[in-house]
């Protein structure tokens, strides 16, 4: 009985104390910047061969985020989906060695802003635009 009581106190009490300690320890941890949600384009500079892909208006972006892993969906003519990573405030993503996206997040703005550059394999020019974040809950099934 005594052995069982001591074991109970050790196996239940110590983990509970450990949880409180870890919660205090983890309060200082920093997670990657939140970029999930929709990013609406504001202004663009595109010309020539890029206009065939993005049209006159740069595409709206929807980002699904899992830590540093990102899935970027564009509402361009091809409904392109790029996968990439977040490194600090810099985003790099690509789609099948055909489409590359580079972006920098501006955390000082509210809501966040992003400077985006998109390049395509068979086009020497790049399209650049800025986008504003519209955060959304990540609660829907995978989009098509």
């Amino acid at each position, binding site marked *: 009985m005594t*052995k*069982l009581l001591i*074991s*109970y106190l050790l*196996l*239940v009490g110590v*983990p*509970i104390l*450990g*949880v409180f300690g*870890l*919660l205090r*320890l*983890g*309060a200082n*941890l*920093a*997670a*990657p*910047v*939140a*970029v*999930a949600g929709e990013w609406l384009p504001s202004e663009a500079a595109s010309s020539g061969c890029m206009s065939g892909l993005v049209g006159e208006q740069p595409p709206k972006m929807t980002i*699904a*985020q*899992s*830590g*540093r*892993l990102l*899935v970027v969906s564009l509402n361009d003519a091809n409904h392109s989906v790029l*996968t990439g990573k977040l490194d600090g405030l810099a985003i790099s993503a690509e789609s099948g060695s055909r489409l590359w996206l580079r972006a920098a997040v501006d955390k000082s703005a509210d809501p966040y802003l992003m400077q985006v550059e998109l390049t395509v394999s068979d086009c020497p020019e790049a399209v650049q635009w800025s986008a504003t974040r519209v*955060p959304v*809950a*990540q*609660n*829907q*099934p*995978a*989009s*098509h």
Partner: protein
Amino acid sequence: MPHLPTLLIQIGVVLVVARLVGFLFRKIHQPQVMGEMVAGILLGPSLLGWVAPGAYSALFPSESLGFLSSLSQIGLLLFMFLVGLELDPKMLQGRGRMALVISHVSITVPFFLGVLLAVYIYPRLSDESVSFTHFALFIGTSMSITAFPVLARILSERRMLHSRLGVIAIASAAINDVTGWLILAGVVLLVRAGDTALPLWVTLAGVVVYIACMLFPVRSLLARLDAIYQRKKVLSQDVLAFLLIFVLASSWLTEWLGIHALFGAFLAGAVLPKQSGFVHALTEKLNDTAVVLLLPLFFAFTGLRTSIGLVSGAEMWFYTTLIVLVAIAGKFGGSTYAARVSGMPWREAGALGILMNTRGLMELVLLNIGLDIGVLSPALFTMLVLMALITTFMTAPILEWIYFSRLVPQEYPDPEADPAGGQP
């Protein structure tokens, strides 16, 4: 309802695939529910959306998913009500002390390891929109869950509900279930505290009043229904309708209080009187519709949200492996050691540990809540779904290996294929 034809096709396809995969899983001595969970994954972007994106888009167009989601949620409410119905305080009689030790250890040890894991994965798999405390508490809870219904089904199929191992396992799982859902309700309350219109103290007071009302006056009122049933020996449609309204009202109240509708459905089942055949008759009326028709829709909806493609590259698979190992070490290790300390021989303690390690669909329920409230990222959701599948899948073969084939095999004969399929 413009999407009715699509919805009907979706339900038909989900049912066919769920029954088919469930049948195949029964052939390899896995519970039907394991096959149905896998069927949901197969219908999602992880397989169908990957090999036949056109068919996937046609079958599950984004704009139709709201209907599928609503139906699956109703099914889940009914299912949680049925899980609550299965909880009988008599399970604890005469074995409360050992079950209490095992169940508490089987919660605290995996919870601690889950929080420890959270310290490592928070900077890698979460983002700044989720606080570390919420994230860690949720990961801890997800490691602590035991699938009480699946465990009960396995014990029942092996005719060991009344064995020493069976009674301790079922009692421990019952305590674990109630404690786990209380912890989850607390975590959801914390996470949603900033979003609800009610101040936190009002919500907390409301939850205490709600639980007190359910345990005392409501329980007494429900005992009268039991008395009516004992007199008439028939569960009338009026009584059934009243109970369904009771479940819906309880679910609505807990959702309004901010601790999730599923908790209300679960508690509604838990407080119903268990003395007579009343609960059995009620379960018979609801079980087939909830388990055969509606639950596979929940698995399909979970599958639609699970994208194994997100777990790509060595780094992501490393995190997945780590999550699975921590889950097993905490639950299997903690339960086994607690059972051993409580006086069980090692082999029996190991069998209990592997039973408690079964997470099954209860884990999927919890993970969907985590995704809904934004605590889990899509990739982490997928990793935890894989953990739930692996820990559920491993139960039957390991139990066979460490227990049935070596310890009194004549006492627990392998049952013939169950035509009902061993439902969850």
